[in-house]
């Protein structure tokens, strides 16, 4: 910024700081306050720090200390050696130690010994051993002299008693040392003294000349209502100055994605369905022609319930018979079946649904008549170890179409349309495998510059549809939402989605 522009945007406080420094070049904030006609020191400091950011002044900080006394009211006004000195003077300059102790002028014994110690150290008295081992204390000439005078430590002590503190430069260092020699008397605290100095840039601003017309910094109700703003100068801001970030309430990214998917389906004429998490193996597996010894039914893959471990199939009695036949020999579906003995006990097992296809087939069973377009989005459960790409629970999206003329060609066309509406640039369809669809396919999508596997599809096997009297092919497709979410929000760990860092949520986009 040019000096002219800088000058234009100076606040009143900054201007006053610069002017205060004009003649002296550098000064302490207190001096600037006086010279610049400030009311409060804080105004000086604000002006200085703004000017400092614009490189108009520099601030040099020097740390030093001040000394002070604590609990002044409770301190004895006289040191013990002074008290003993005065007592000795009264008693003609010499006493035995016992006499001093019993005189009662000093209550604590350790203060007496401290006092005797200081008397000796200051050279005010001599201590000698008399008869019977008792000690006697006698004033020296210096001691006699000192009865009318004060020692440097006493002077400092008295000054400190009258003040809040004394800067180290103002205190006699010898006296300080002496006061420090007494326990718990003298304390110190660090202080910082600042010197503000005008820089070259600051000088340039002064050379341009500073207009001290009063300007308005903050538009207050008072400014507006009083009409004070008329003719006044309103300070211009540097619009690029940092402003703190604001994060409002918002939807979770997974919800954002679910809503987009729901919109796509609804606009394409689909009806939303839902179901419960707890299901029977019958509906989740057997009805979908998953063989009873298929590995997906193992404990390693599917969560079974501990307490409510069986689900009644009474309502589905007729269907149970048909499904048994489908598995064993194909029933009337034109299939060979799996050729094993089907167990209804296995089918009664209660589990956590492993896919939303269980909702779909339940719906189809009750609504076998075309045309049908339905979709569901919901949580499903697989017995997985938790790591960056796996959770035991995730969100599955599923759509189906059943109508006269529905076929594999239509399925592929729907997929292209569906993914296009999802904002996917391109898709690739290739063979896949699912136990309950034939033909089956897998979808690769081109998204954010990369190919990724995103979903599978197929036509329900006759073994799945015929038992419900469904006449036309049922086209079905599904995808896991989390993979797409990870790419969309550039995450590398699926756990971020469901055990979210609030900072990430606060900053994530709602697109």
């Amino acid at each position, binding site marked *: 910024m040019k000096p002219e522009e800088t000058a234009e945007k100076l606040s009143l406080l900054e201007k006053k700081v610069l002017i205060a420094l004009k003649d002296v070049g550098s000064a302490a904030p207190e001096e600037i306050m006086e010279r610049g006609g400030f009311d409060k020191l804080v105004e000086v400091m604000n002006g200085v720090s703004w000017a400092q950011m614009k490189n108009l002044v520099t601030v040099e900080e020097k740390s030093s200390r001040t000394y002070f006394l604590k609990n002044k009211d409770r301190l004895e006004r006289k040191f013990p050696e002074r008290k003993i000195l005065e007592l000795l003077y009264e008693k003609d300059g010499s006493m035995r130690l016992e006499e001093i102790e019993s005189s009662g002028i000093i209550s604590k014994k350790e203060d007496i010994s401290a006092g005797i110690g200081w008397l000796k150290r200051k050279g005010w008295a001599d201590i000698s051993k008399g008869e019977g081992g008792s000690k006697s204390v006698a004033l020296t000439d210096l001691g006699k002299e000192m009865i009318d005078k004060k020692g440097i430590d006493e002077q400092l002590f008295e000054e400190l008693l009258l003040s809040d503190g004394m800067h180290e430069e103002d205190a006699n260092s010898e006296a300080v040392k002496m006061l420090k020699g007494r326990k718990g008397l003298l304390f110190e605290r660090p202080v910082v003294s600042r010197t503000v100095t005008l820089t070259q840039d600051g000088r340039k601003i002064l050379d341009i000349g500073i207009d001290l017309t009063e300007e308005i910094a903050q538009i207050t109700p008072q400014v507006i209502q009083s009409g004070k703003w008329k003719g006044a100068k309103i300070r211009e801001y540097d619009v690029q100055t940092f402003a703190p970030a604001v994060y*409002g*309430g918002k*939807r*979770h990214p*997974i*919800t954002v994605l679910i809503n987009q998917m*729901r919109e796509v389906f609804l606009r*394409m*004429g*689909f*009806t939303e369905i*839902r*179901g*419960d*998490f707890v299901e029977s193996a019958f509906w989740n597996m057997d009805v979908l022609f998953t063989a009873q*010894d298929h*590995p997906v039914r193992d*404990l390693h893959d599917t*969560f*079974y*319930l501990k*307490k*409510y471990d069986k689900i009644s199939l009474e309502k589905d009695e007729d269907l149970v018979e048909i499904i048994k036949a489908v598995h064993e020999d*194909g029933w009337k579906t034109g*299939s060979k079946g*799996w*050729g094993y003995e089907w167990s209804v006990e296995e089918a009664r097992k209660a589990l*956590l649904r492993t896919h939303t296809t269980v909702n779909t087939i339940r719906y189809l069973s009750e609504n076998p008549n075309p045309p049908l*377009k339905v979709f569901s989005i919901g949580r499903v459960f697989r*017995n*997985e*170890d*938790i790591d960056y790409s796996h*959770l*035991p*629970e995730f969100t599955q999206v599923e759509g189906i179409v059943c*109508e006269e003329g529905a*076929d*594999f*060609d239509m399925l*592929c*066309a*729907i997929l292209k*349309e569906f993914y296009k509406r999802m904002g996917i640039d391109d898709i690739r*369809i*290739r*063979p*896949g*495998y699912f136990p309950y669809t*034939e*033909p089956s396919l897998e979808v690769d999508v081109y998204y954010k510059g990369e190919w990724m596997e995103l979903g599978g599809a197929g*036509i329900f096997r006759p*073994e799945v549809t015929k038992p419900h009297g469904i006449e036309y092919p049922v086209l079905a497709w599904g995808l896991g939402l989390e993979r797409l979410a990870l790419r969309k929000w550039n995450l590398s760990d699926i756990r971020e*989605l*469901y*055990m*979210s*860092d*609030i900072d990430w*949520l606060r900053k994530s986009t709602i697109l």
Partner: protein
Amino acid sequence: MPVINFSFGDLKSLMGKEIDFETLVDRLPMMGADVHTAEKDNDELAFEFFPDRPDLYSVEGIARAFSAFLGMNPGLRRYEVSESDVVLNVDPSVEQVRPFIWSALVTDVEMNDFLIRSVMDIQEKLHLTVGRNRKKVAIGIHDFDTVNSPFLYTTSAPDEMSFFPLQGTREMTLREILEVHDKGRAYAFVLEGKERYPIILDRDQNVLSFPPIINGIVTTVTEETKNILVDCTGTDLSALKVTVNILVTALAERGAKIHSVKIVRGSEGAAAPDLEPWKISVPLDMVEELTGIREPPEKLIELLARMGYSAAMDGSSLSVDVPAYRYDILHPADIIEDIAKAYGYERFGSKLPKYSTLGASDIEFDFWEVLRNAMIGLGYLEVSTLTLTGREDQYGRTRRPEPEQIVEVMNPRSNDHSILRTSLLPELMAILRKNKHRDLPQRIFEVGEVVEELRNSGRLAGASIHAKASFTEMKSFVEGLLRSVGIRLKIAPAEDPSFIKGRCANVLIDGEVSGLFGEVHPEVISSFELGYPIAAFELRVSPVMKGTNDSWSR
């Protein structure tokens, strides 16, 4: 899905033709495979194949299918089976233990590194998939020239017989093998509860195998082996037959010759293996109905040849010969999928549905959105947590008693994910715990499902944590929230162990308790490792939706 590792050079030599790398990585997936690892300058490749195609679990099987798919060697591959005088007798005692055995003799095997590796790999993959971890099917491969026919598949008591097992250090009894030997310990579960164990012996009582655990050392296949005897035992005869077919045809692809073994069970005898293709009839109109492909029958027959079948017209159907190594053909639909693969998946996708339907959303999910809008408007941040959670967070740390009916899984990987939540609030607490070092205030909410009496139920919960979070804050909030959806609520004092006594209230909508709010108990806050006051609420969505007295309540 099984990953098959193989050498590109070996594949090309088996296919008998030069193909380039791009053809492989472009076309093999279109036949039905996922690229696992494939780099242009690396001869070692890895592809994943689908669980319905065990015939592709070897480089030989891939070469056979791929050379047909590319039109280099289309049609049904025929394998000759010569008779032999080898006999395998089956003792009736196996019925209760491991009822079936199937076999084959393969001669003129030219051992090399590729073959040895491939045979090992096929066995392992077949054991895991078709074999259901050796429970349903287990394969044994023997150097035929070390033993003598007739063979006997019988049973033995655990301590009755001993032999020197492969990968063993000494002769062991069957019981010892199950207890001490690595393979014995790994597969003992298959024989759990059996009083006798299966065993295969030769004429001189040499142990060929203790299926499905381990072979005897006598018949170890080495680089010198010329002739191989295959045994395959298990519980499902048709699976055994296909397994043997997959294995021996793979060896035949490398020039070996297949001979039959006579399996004698009482008065019945059967020749194993059986490589005769079987027939399935595929109606022409079903092809069009399922795929939309409109092609003349000759073209369909050509497409079938690309998938390794031979076919002929039979009235209005195609009569298709299915190779004896295919395990996945149950229904004409399975053949039709193969027609679609040969036709090319990339060629589909031309017609959208004809019928217009009226879409409809789920009204409760719509109402979730109404609630989210209200919450967001009030400055709350949405979180999403897992339904599958732990007792410790749901009940222990919240001081709440565990309800009688909770959904607990029998086989959790961790205690933190072992039950379905009955309340959202503890999950919000867990999110706050995770974010204890983040700036306050934090105000979060979730709309989601809990499970009560085995049924899903929608809930809305919110929590606010900061130095001045209070009952009053939450009361104002809940009243404001419900007011914004037109609800007239009543508030009554409540007690809940998660909240401070006297600072917790029930929300009544039309006289029904529909939720609660209050100041979270300090003990709960501390047990979630937090140190600031929390005010929170949880509501049932359905009474709120009904209480709106709007179209939502219908």
